[in-house]
């Protein structure tokens, strides 16, 4: 299983049972995870993204045990994010970058989003956009952050058809018929971390093409056990299960 939604370092509002990288890696492996796309919680509130990315790359090398795919974070509201992008690709050899628009205070219709997508295509980088990190009902009362308004992204996907975008924690915000419209808009993928409802994968697949669904756990904020259990809860059959659990994610990263 490839887990496309993992973070390292410390969740700002609570210590988590698995917020030690080595311990997280061990747990993910025990659940059958063979690769985990890992960003850093530090990227949410820290002011210096390049330091966050350097620490993340170091942590993945030192404690990843071959499991962690480092995901650089970009703050498109910061001057010089283009240099951060260059360092992610050239210095840290990253293949994926992650955005937190709602925590960083911009919307997806910002020109920088289009610029980033163009540069990501040139550099063969997958872009992950975090739609939300936590249920608004449980957020710290002094740090309430609404979900990202995703709709403006569709326009960029039309204008940048080669861009590859993975939406994290977006299932729940987007459901039903809207999923098929997203799939038609461009190269966009969803993952399972915030997918809820009984046998939720089966329900989502009524509208979302199976090649657009990936597995994410949102560990360590969420218990990673939910990832494999969601695959079990829907009656998928082995071929479809393998496609969602692994094959789709491999293809997302394959630009050949």
């Amino acid at each position: 299983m490839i887990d496309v939604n993992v973070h390292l370092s410390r969740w700002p509002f609570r210590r988590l049972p698995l917020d030690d990288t080595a311990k997280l890696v061990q747990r993910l492996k025990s659940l059958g995870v063979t690769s985990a796309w890992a960003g850093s919680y530090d990227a949410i509130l820290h002011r210096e993204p390049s330091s966050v990315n350097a620490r993340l790359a170091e942590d993945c090398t030192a404690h990843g045990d071959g499991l962690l795919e480092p995901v650089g974070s970009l703050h498109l509201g910061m001057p010089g994010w283009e240099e951060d992008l260059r360092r992610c690709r050239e210095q840290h050899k990253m293949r994926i970058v992650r955005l937190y628009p709602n925590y960083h205070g911009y919307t997806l219709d910002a020109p920088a989003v289009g610029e980033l997508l163009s540069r990501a295509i040139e550099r063969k980088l997958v872009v992950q956009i975090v739609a939300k990190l936590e249920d608004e009902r449980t957020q710290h009362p002094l740090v309430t952050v609404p979900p990202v308004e995703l709709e403006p992204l569709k326009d960029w996907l039309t204008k940048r058809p080669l861009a590859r975008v993975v939406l994290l924690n977006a299932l729940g915000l987007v459901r039903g018929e809207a999923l098929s419209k997203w799939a038609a808009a461009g190269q966009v993928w969803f993952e399972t971390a915030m997918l809820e409802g009984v046998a939720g994968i089966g329900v989502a697949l009524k509208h979302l093409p199976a090649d657009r669904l990936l597995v994410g756990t949102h560990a360590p904020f969420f218990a990673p056990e939910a990832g494999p259990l969601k695959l079990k809860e829907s009656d998928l059959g082995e071929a479809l299960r393998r496609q969602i659990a692994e094959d789709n994610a491999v293809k997302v990263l394959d630009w050949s």
Partner: protein
Amino acid sequence: MIWDLHCHLSGVDGRTVDERIAQLMEIADRMGVDRLVFSMGWPWSQDPGPDDFRKQNDQVIQALSHWQHRAVGLAYLNPKHAEESLAELDRVVRDGPLVGVKLWVAERCSAESLDAIIRKAAGLKALIFQHTWYKTGGNYPGESTPDDLALLAKRHPDVPLICGHSGGNWERGIRAIRDCPNVYVETAGFDPTAGMVELAVRELGDERVLYGSDIGGRSFASQLAKVTGAEITEPARRRILGENLRNLLKPILTAKGMRL
């Protein structure tokens, strides 16, 4: 052995209650869930009148009719309609197949209007489940917090009460009911945030923690993960996943001659 305290018929495919529960049982089988506790029918009503809660209870009774070996049900009541709620307890618990009470968001549970319901339910050995949340951004007017439940629990110290959702913001919820030994927390209906079960076990003891899912709005998967992924002992996990609930239901199931 997994017993799920918190199951609904809404949010599930199927035109009839029979179709819905049959489908849920297939999924429960895949997930290893042995017994399910249902409450409320559909459409949902936050402040149901007597006709409405009677209708919803009838839906649950119909759903259980072919699944009595695997499922039990709770009576949905509204303390704003106290007399009708007491009569409904007679109809569906004393004289019917239901085994407990579900209280949702019509009235905060610290209100004295609940006292007669609690006393009657306790007399029937019925399980009492109260929804609670602390919502950042504010609760519904009649929505209880664990603070409300603690007040109720202190008025009825010998009656077991269940703190639904552990208050959602569970760090605060667990604290609020910690010194009420008759209150149990349940794990259902919030995101599978890691660490909740560990904290509950540490602060309350594993015997006061109950697994629930809140299907069909939630998945079995995300809710089971809170318990299966928790760093607790295996005996504690077994108690949370089923033994504690079985023990709570034992008096009424035994009294009614129902399968334990």
